[in-house]
């Protein structure tokens, strides 16, 4: 395993942003970030808000380029939009003018999959997440949980080996969240893609991940790496009862709490310095 090429890898990546306006100063979002994910690994990325977790996904999707360092997908540099990965955002980003079925078929259509296959594969995934019977519905006619399911299978249906997920369950209510976590785990175990999963929810990160990277506050870099050795398949509904869960949760939380405090002290100093 250790010798095989990682599915994705960031090497000494820096990313600076400059806001709008003439007086805007460059802001360092990522500082010397290096990590790799093995093929088939489920990796959780956690950290305080604004620490650059989502930026890492955008770099891997090729939607933005690093200011320095290298971003690799199976050893090859990512240059320009990376269509070899799947990308699932916090907003469901379904096309409102397409029915559920047509939305799920979208990627197959763009990727030149033969037309006869679209329907079969789309329907298979729609059934898999229990959306059968809603194929003809438009996104605004579906509930938040149904739209989220649709946006996930829309990406999984075209079978990429790497899937980037940016707080996909963020806007959902607590119950729907756990149900969808279970469904995601089931879907992931089917084809075992590499998943990079950004979340603020530590329970969610533990329930789903093989490894978790904790980010520092801005400028973000990897503070620590945790291995989640809980046996699979996991019961996400009772994950907090699993042996070892508490220790891991406490460790993650104290890391993040320290980062949040550090960020707040930095802000206070900045405010005092400006006085």
């Amino acid at each position, binding site marked *: 395993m250790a010798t095989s090429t990682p599915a994705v890898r960031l090497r000494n990546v820096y990313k600076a942003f400059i806001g709008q306006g003439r007086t805007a100063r460059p802001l360092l979002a990522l500082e010397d970030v290096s990590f790799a994910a093995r093929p088939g690994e489920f990796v959780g990325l956690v950290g305080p808000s604004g620490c650059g977790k989502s930026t890492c996904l955008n770099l891997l999707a090729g*939607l933005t380029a690093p200011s320095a360092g290298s971003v690799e997908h199976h050893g090859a540099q990512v240059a320009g939009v990376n269509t070899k990965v799947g*990308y699932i955002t916090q907003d469901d980003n379904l*096309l409102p003018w397409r029915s559920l079925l047509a939305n799920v078929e979208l*990627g197959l259509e*763009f990727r030149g999959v033969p037309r006869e296959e679209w329907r079969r594969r789309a329907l298979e995934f729609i059934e898999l997440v229990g959306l059968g019977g809603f194929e003809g519905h438009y996104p605004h006619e579906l509930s938040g949980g149904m739209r989220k399911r649709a946006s996930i299978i829309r990406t999984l249906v075209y079978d990429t080996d790497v899937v980037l997920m940016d707080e996909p369950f963020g806007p959902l209510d607590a119950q729907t969240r756990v149900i969808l976590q279970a469904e995601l785990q089931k879907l992931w175990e089917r084809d075992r893609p590499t998943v990079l999963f950004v979340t603020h929810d530590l329970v969610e990160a533990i329930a789903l991940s093989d490894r978790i990277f904790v980010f520092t506050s801005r400028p973000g870099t990897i503070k620590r790496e945790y291995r989640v050795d809980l046996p699979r398949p996991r019961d996400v509904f009772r994950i907090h009862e699993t042996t070892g869960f508490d220790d891991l949760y406490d460790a993650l939380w104290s890391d993040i709490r320290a980062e949040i405090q550090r960020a707040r002290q930095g802000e206070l100093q900045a405010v005092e310095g400006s006085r």
Partner: protein
Amino acid sequence: MGIETGARVTALETPLALGPEAASGSARVLADELARRDRAVREQRRFLLIARVGVLVAIIVGWDLASGRLIRTFFVSSPGAVARQLADWIASGQLLYHGQFTLTATVLGYVVGSVAAILLAWPLGLMPRLFRITEPYFLVAYSIPAVAMGPIFILWFGLGLTPKILLAAYFVFFIVFVNTVVGFQQVPRGLLDVTRVMGASRSDLLRAVILPSAVPYVLAALRSTLPAAMIGAVVGEFIASNRGLGYLANAAASEYATEGVIAAVFVMALIVLAMTVLLRPLSGALRWQRGIDARGDIV
């Protein structure tokens, strides 16, 4: 007997098993609620119709009473005189004759203006840099009072139908143009990002994301610019013409025939109203939009 620690959670038994009676009771409640809703909608509609007719009657009666008593007939004429004037024009064929020119100029101007606006907005909406370059010139053109273009079009194209069509088109053009450009530019960033990572080519993006996203904006503009086309056509007729409803109104005014002016204006309003009703299906054309923005229709 040890002391129990920790909270105990006990689920309460459902007090009554939900038997068939309960089910039929629920069905009745649902049916009743539906019937109540339908009744309320029907009553609402009837009330609206009666109220609207009432307003019309009040205006006509008030007008009739005020005319000659509160305000001199010379200024406001009277409902009867306007009705007689309309009947005269219909009988003599004048209404049909003049109406057709105004109608032609309005409809052709509407079509020419909208098509030109969409064709020009298309590339500009897709190429932000081109849009940034040309933007100030469009702003200048937009800030010219559209009426001022009348004499220019007449200088260029004479007294016939052409300057009226162009003026109507000019009135329509900017509204449709601006809406179409905005329609192309407002495509949510997230949708574009996600579809690009999915592997959409440029033409895929245009076909599957950008065009459908712009359609509601274009339709909204098309629905709201008909009155503007009519204004353009009539302004053209006011400036220089010997036919059309604008000419008819102008001619009546020069003879101090108030009922003629009012009758001509009334017909213009009727034409716009009729065309607006004809274009109404445009707003309901998109099923995916229904429920997203249910806007109340006036007509």
